[in-house]
């Protein structure tokens, strides 16, 4: 066990956990931020996607000891009142089926649109390919990302 200082969604935390603990489980079990989901634990499904200094990464593969001062953002910190263009588009398109993959999808898309705010359909489809939706709501995810991109322009 070791003590770490952590900045999540612009809030500072001091936590005492096993140093091999992946950020995913610190978020969920220690901080109670349940929006970041566990799907595979090996970086293959994207359900656990968060932002690390603004860039989407898999929190299931990131040990707490590797975070240091870096800024972590989770779905809970993406916006106030679901006002992020992606969250708005998600609601407009009515994307979810079971909903389990959705925060990961939104976090991947948010970081992608920050880097590329005029994506082509092909670019969207490739950028999102790391996030599994077992319910296969893929058409609507694609539509919502395109819609959000439009709004951001």
């Amino acid at each position, binding site marked *: *066990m070791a003590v770490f200082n952590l900045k999540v969604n612009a809030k500072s935390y001091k936590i005492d*956990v*096993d140093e*091999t*603990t*992946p950020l995913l*489980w610190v978020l*969920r*079990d*220690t901080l*109670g*931020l*349940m*929006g*970041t*989901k*566990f*799907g*595979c*634990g*090996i970086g*293959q*499904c994207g*359900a656990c996607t968060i932002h690390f200094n603004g860039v989407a990464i898999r929190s299931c593969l990131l040990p707490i000891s590797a975070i240091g001062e870096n800024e972590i953002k989770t*779905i*809970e910190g*993406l916006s106030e*009142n*679901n006002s992020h263009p992606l*969250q708005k588009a*998600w*609601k407009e398109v*009515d994307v*979810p*089926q*079971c*909903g*389990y*993959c*959705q*925060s990961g999808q*939104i976090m991947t898309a948010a970081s992608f649109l920050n880097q590329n705010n005029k994506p082509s359909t092909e670019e*969207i*489809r*490739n950028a*999102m*390919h*790391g*996030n*599994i*939706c*077992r*319910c*296969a*709501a*893929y*058409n*609507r*995810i*694609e539509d919502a990302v395109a819609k959000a991109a439009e709004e951001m322009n």
Partner: protein
Amino acid sequence: MKATNQTDSSRRQFLKSTLFASGGLLFGINFLNAKNPLTILSEEQARSGFLNFNAFIKIAQDGKVIIYAPNPEIGQGVKTSLPMLIAEELDVAWENVIVEQAKLDIKKYKRQGAGGSKSIEFSWLPLRTSGAAAKQMLITAAAKRWKVSVKDCHAENGIVYNRRGDQLGYGELVEDATKLKVPTKIKLKDPSEFKIIGQHIKNVDLDKIVSGKPLFGLDYKIEGMFIATVIRPPSFGQKIVSFNADEAKNLSGVLNVIEFKNKIAIVGVNTWTVFKAKKLIEVKWTSNEKLESTTQQDKKMLDLVEKENPSQLKTRRKDGNVKAALDDADTIVSAVYEAPFLPHNTLEPMNFYANVTKHKVHLVGPIQTPTGAAMAVARLLGRDRDDIELEMTRIGGGFGRRLKNDFVLEAAEISHLVKKPIKMVNSREDDFANGFYRPKVKYQIKAGIKNGKVTSYYLKEIAVGGNINDSRANFFPAASIENYQIDIARIKSRVTTMAWRAPISNILAFAEQSFMDELAEELQQDPVSLRLELLKKADTSDRRMAYSPKRMEGVINLVTEKANWGEAPNGTYQGFSSYFSHNTHVALIAEVIIENQLPIVKKVYCAVDCGVVVNPLGADNQCVGGVIDGIGHAMYGDLDLKNGAAQNLNFDSYRLIRMNETPRLETYFVKSDIAPTGLGEPTLPPAGPAVANAIKAALGVRLYKQPFIKNGKLNI
């Protein structure tokens, strides 16, 4: 009608908490106190036997309405669509409805499950009736207050009016209404009067989902709760000889390591600790019998396929004389189709919370069959059924896996043994290795052609796991070919299997709808026209016949028109397939292109007849999901077993379809006033064969095995 999900979640939250906290403002009306609102009843029974229903409607003085969604939400949309049925007949504005998930309550509800695409079909009359009864009582209460006849009153959007132009809101009437007798004659709306049913209503949990609120079983947390995980045999058929948990027990945060029922539970303070501890435990396994592998099973199965009349065969349906007709045929078309085991792979791994105490057993989590789970736990612990309290969370995917309650029993047993509240959590690898897979199946189909007509059809099914049941034996082409026979046989195995989205149909459709195209090719006939010709011949007086030839024709005509069947642009190849399952008729046309010798599915046209479409927005989501799921698993899904152990244990070695591989869908519904049927499953079965038929058109190669793509190549 506006949807519910405007940015009023905070207002709703406020409303809920203040109303409930102060107690005085919210009237919880159980309009009807009798049990079993979801009993399957005919229309007449439903109307007259009304006392069997319970609406679970609460109305506040300001006219807000809480409707309890009785069935678990696994992504099929019933948390939205079932309350719509009640709100429609209650006649309230959907904006004023707050939907809550009901707890398991076998005294109040019947069939509080999710499975078989049955929720809408079974709830259509009962839930509407409960809404209509409530409305009638509110009207009666208003009429009494005004001292006018009920006939002179009507209600709309939560307000009762009389002829003088007076009006009273439901909220003002609710207290009086609850004191009235439940009416026995209930009038339901004519479909032309629907205001909510048929509207595009958004998912009631949208706000919570897009902001990451805890909704799922895995998100459930309660003060004092521990996490447990379980080591189970890595191979089907193994037993524990011994194990060493010294190192695991020394890990900080580990509370307990205990053996139970040939499994080992590790209990600790958090998920990572128990996952880590699990890897530190060395277990010696043994097995008395030879462990199975998929290659050996394949061999056994193919032997039975080849063998004439093996003794294991059972006949599911027999018309005419298939053998004689085959002997007499000018040509025989024969083919064997194969499909592997598939894990369910719900994205939310199996988990359940249990707190077993002297006073009660509290269970919380994602389960498709809460009633069965609660009873099984009562039996396991020797408790009274009334001691068990079960709450359903939103479910991160079911696909049939959560019809089983093994993980609920494990959670309850662990909590009972360690005397602590625990949540049992599986890793992805646990879900893969200890799954209840889709049965592994092989089909042989033979058909005889005489004078240019199909005169006989013989299908033999060899399965590890579930077989064709009576109803599926009566699907198309049953009753359309005079000599017709379905035989089945099962291979004994220790590998556990289970219903998997659109059970049996999900493979049977691949075999039959591929075979239809092979027949058409032999007959040099358009594959669609062959199906239409057989449907015309279908003997509608056959009472066993499960499908409707007319409705099937309807979806076929709709899809061929929308997709311009037969007129694909150069380089695009079309494949057709139609299938009836879960009382819904579906026809698909898939379009593929070829890149680097591999097929890419670009587009799928989907026509569906499910009767009334309750929520077109949710319905479309189900259809699209079902088709892409069907294509994904037909293309890539493959679970291999060696020495009794699953060889694919996570998404690095097991391929699920991803966004860059998905086609775009166009979904069309046949306009209909017929009572609705399910949509969670029926678009899946025809998806694989539509793609296989398109690939045949593109490459001239007939696919007989799922997955279609193996090791990056066509699986031929």
